[in-house]
């Protein structure tokens, strides 16, 4: 999404000010080392750089370009799918296990990319099983496990 520099600079300025102002609320114990120091400096610099970008881009403030992908339903679906997949894995894997959630994610993602559903299902099952097995049993990483993982162990 291409935004004019004026607006992105303004966002940096606002964030920088918020960071610096919030830092003033940190309790400072006696001594030279204040927990406020670096956050205030970082926030101040962020606001300054944002301000310079805003100032530099003030002439083009109204030139908002709509991204090209908004005109394609598939591209929108692909973009929306990514955060949904992360959230779905984060919320559902602990309850249902990694294999079923991974299978569904890979299946849906490849279908949106244009793979025929039957092939996508085979891919989802294969990748869901093999990659999860490799992570858990070869690499020893304890991924969220559910009923299917328990059956396979």
């Amino acid at each position, binding site marked *: 999404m291409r935004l004019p520099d004026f607006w*992105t600079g303004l966002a940096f300025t606002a964030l920088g000010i918020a960071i610096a102002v919030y830092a003033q609320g940190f309790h400072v114990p006696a001594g030279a080392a204040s927990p406020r120091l670096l*956050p205030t400096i970082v926030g101040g610099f962020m606001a300054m750089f944002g301000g*310079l970008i805003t100032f530099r881009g003030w002439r083009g403030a109204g030139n908002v370009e709509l991204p090209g992908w908004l005109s394609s339903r598939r591209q929108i679906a692909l973009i929306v799918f990514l955060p949904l997949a992360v959230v779905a894995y984060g919320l559902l894997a602990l309850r249902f296990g990694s294999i079923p959630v991974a299978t569904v994610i890979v299946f849906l993602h490849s279908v949106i990319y244009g793979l025929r559903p039957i092939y996508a299902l085979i891919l989802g099952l294969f990748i869901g099983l093999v990659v999860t097995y490799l992570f858990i049993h070869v690499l020893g990483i304890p991924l969220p496990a559910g009923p299917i993982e328990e059956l396979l162990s």
Partner: protein
Amino acid sequence: MTGFLEGFALVMQADVLITMLISAIFGLFVGMVPGLSATMAVALLVPVAFTLSPVAALATIITCSAMAMFAGDIPAAFLRIPGTPASAAYTYDMNDLVRAGRLGDALGMSLVGSAMGGVFGAIILMFGAPLLADFAINFSSYEYFWLALLGLSCATLVAGDDALKGWASLTIGLFLSVVGLDFVTGIQRYTFGITNLQAGIGFISVMIGAFALSELFRKAAAFEGETNGPGLAISGRPLPTLRSLWEQRNHIGRGGLIGTLVGALPGAGADIAAWVTYAVSKRFARKPELFGHGSVEGVAGAATANNAALSGSYVPTLVFGIPGDSITAIVVGVLILKGIQPGPLVFVNSADMVNAIYIIFLLANILLVPLGVAAVYLGRTAISIRDAILYPVILLLCLYGAYAVSNNTFELWIVLAIGVLVWIMQENNYPAAPLILGLVLGQVVEQNFMSSLIKSDGNVINFFNRPIAGVLGVLTLIVWFSPIIMGILRRADTAPESTNKT
């Protein structure tokens, strides 16, 4: 010489050579997965290493880490997604080179550079370990503070076309580095009551978000229908020509030297070595304008440095028993468990073992070339898979890689937030590399600044009192203020001319 031959005999055992080969393949595999770092590859091998003989255990760790370090470059080159944090500095250069059909100048250069860096570091380890250790042990919080601050100046070098946006991106990384419990006071900063944020924001999760997830967003936004591949025509031989290698001799040599020196500093490591070398290479490059857009010089220097840093990190480990980085922290544990106490006496009490370590380093880095070429071919095959198969698999690897960081789904939210943020930033010409740099160095800057401030009781003069700190401090100030001074001098030069004209 006798000690060297004894070490050689220890390494030339069937069990050692077989474990080296297996751990090499394992290291290549783990390094290629985004989010799984060389440290994680080694950590995963620890349970196996404890069951092996001391030499075989060390061979496993050294070989695996060297392979994983290089393997991180493979997804970076083909997909713009670094496999390990140490590859982040030159990811875009390698991808642009591969896109230009210069596989040998990208991955080939990185492969040969990595091997040469590893060998270079091993040679320095063999002959200069005590000297280097003396140098490294003189570093206190003052020196680390200046070194990290000097590293932050790299932001201008990795910022791309728009320096101002690069600095803005750097401040985001610095902000992320202050989230969590304050190092000195233990006060919670920007945690908003979220327990998981108290430990700070994990570097690997940020890297997966900034490079992998944002890349998936970018691919999705640019998707224009089914193709037979991801649109990347890979051509060229997997190794660089001798001429190309010769042209990069200075960058490789410099990368080896800087990598070993940075690696020898406890707490620094391959990531910082790669960033610093990348910045220094740009200063000395014949074509600095190509950095970030397909610079062979950048790849040669930084890829050499991260493997050299691995060898360098064994200097304080062996000489003082102080781990140079997280991998050598594991090595210290293995050594102690096997009855070998690292420290100055290790060169007397276990001379054969120390020599065996040198030989393993040399062998592992020589082995890297043929196995690395095979891994490049494997990666080349993987990249020819169509989008509909490749990207879902990458997404899954990112999810698993992020979860594996702390076995906590919270890492996924970090990946998501950073992925969306960096995608929007990149769409608006804000580079991601300074953000990563800020996160890597932010904590080092603050912790050492605060420690120094406490030690000096708030007296800033003490930051320049020690010889190395003084030199580093002046150097940093020159680097930071030279653009302003140069600008004033240029104006002063042009002012009389314009006055004369009038």
